């Protein structure tokens, strides 16, 4: 069964929703993975669309979680809007 590959499965529950990762299936190719994904993840729960993606094609980030914490000091994004005028001359 060395020919089996892992496919990540994404399901869209209703039109307008994002496709969300729901799990994986193992299959020899993408069309077969799609059939399995339909049986496996769309049999009970609402679904209007499925994506299957070969895991080998996924590039996962290698950064430590702390890297994503960088640059949290973003006070400038809260410019104050209407309050800016009443604050007086800069």
């Amino acid at each position, binding site marked *: *069964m*060395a*020919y*089996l590959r*892992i496919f990540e499965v994404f399901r869209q529950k209703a039109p307008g929703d994002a496709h969300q990762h*729901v*799990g*994986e*299936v*193992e299959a020899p190719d993408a069309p077969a993975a799609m059939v399995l994904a339909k*049986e*496996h*993840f769309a*049999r*009970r*729960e609402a679904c209007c669309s499925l994506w299957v993606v070969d895991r080998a094609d996924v590039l*996962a980030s290698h950064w430590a979680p702390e890297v994503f914490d960088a640059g949290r000091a973003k006070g400038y994004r809260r410019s104050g809007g209407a309050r800016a005028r009443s604050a007086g001359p800069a």
Partner: protein
Amino acid sequence: MTTPAQQHPVPAGQVEPWQDIPDDYRAAATRMIEFHMMSEIVGPVHEFRWVPRAPSLQAKLMFAAKSQDEVGHGLMLLRVCEDLTGKSRAQYLEQILDGPPRFMNIFHYPWDEWVDPAIVAWLIDGAEIERQATLLRSSYGPYARAMRKILKEEGFHHHCGRYLIGRMMAGGPRQRAAVQRGVDRWWLRTLAMFGPRDENSRHGPALMAFGLKLARNEDLRQSWLTKFVPQIRAMGLEIPDDSLARDEEAGQWAYTEPDWAEFSSLLRGGSPVGADLQRDLRTARRVNDWLLAED
């Protein structure tokens, strides 16, 4: 004496397969999830044997769907195990088909009457819900995520069981007697299914310390009793335990202990019934080999 939490530092937050996982955490997670996985794959052999013999079209549809769900749970957990241990699907199939029978006690008993699968769906899928609801917060991320789908489907199984038992209880005296026989047979097995109390549980405390497991066996058994004792009685059935009583002050049930020696011998050594389930899976594998053959 050191507590399990001191012996086993709990990894912070949710653990994912691509992180550095301490060896003892990985070993504990593997033992627990492989056991669950094999139960989901071997167990439904009992169920799909009942699909052709189900007493109504509706019951047939329910059991076809239920056994399909259970195998699906097994496949999901098989993926979780593969990423956790690096073993391949082929290696796992060999382990499931020919390896030691590491699966739940309840599959080691015969399911000879129609009431058996119905009682199991009602009481034991109900018991699984009790445990799995806590596992949604398990520290191993892929396992906790798989539990979302599994738990929803176990809810359907429990409702099927309750409906089918209700139908039998609405039938004649022979049907009601069959259900009572079922409760008598499955009561202690169901209590045992939660596993021994912490002080007698070899792996429980470490699993709790790792956050792999979120509730103690005894606590799960107690909350199942609180839910199911009234449910069983409301169905017009008797519980075959004279010492069953609730201490309202302590909020605890007293009950007759299951046969723990039998429980551990089934989990360690298996049974003829369990061996037969594995044999059926081997036959299914052989019959379908042409489909899987590489060319």
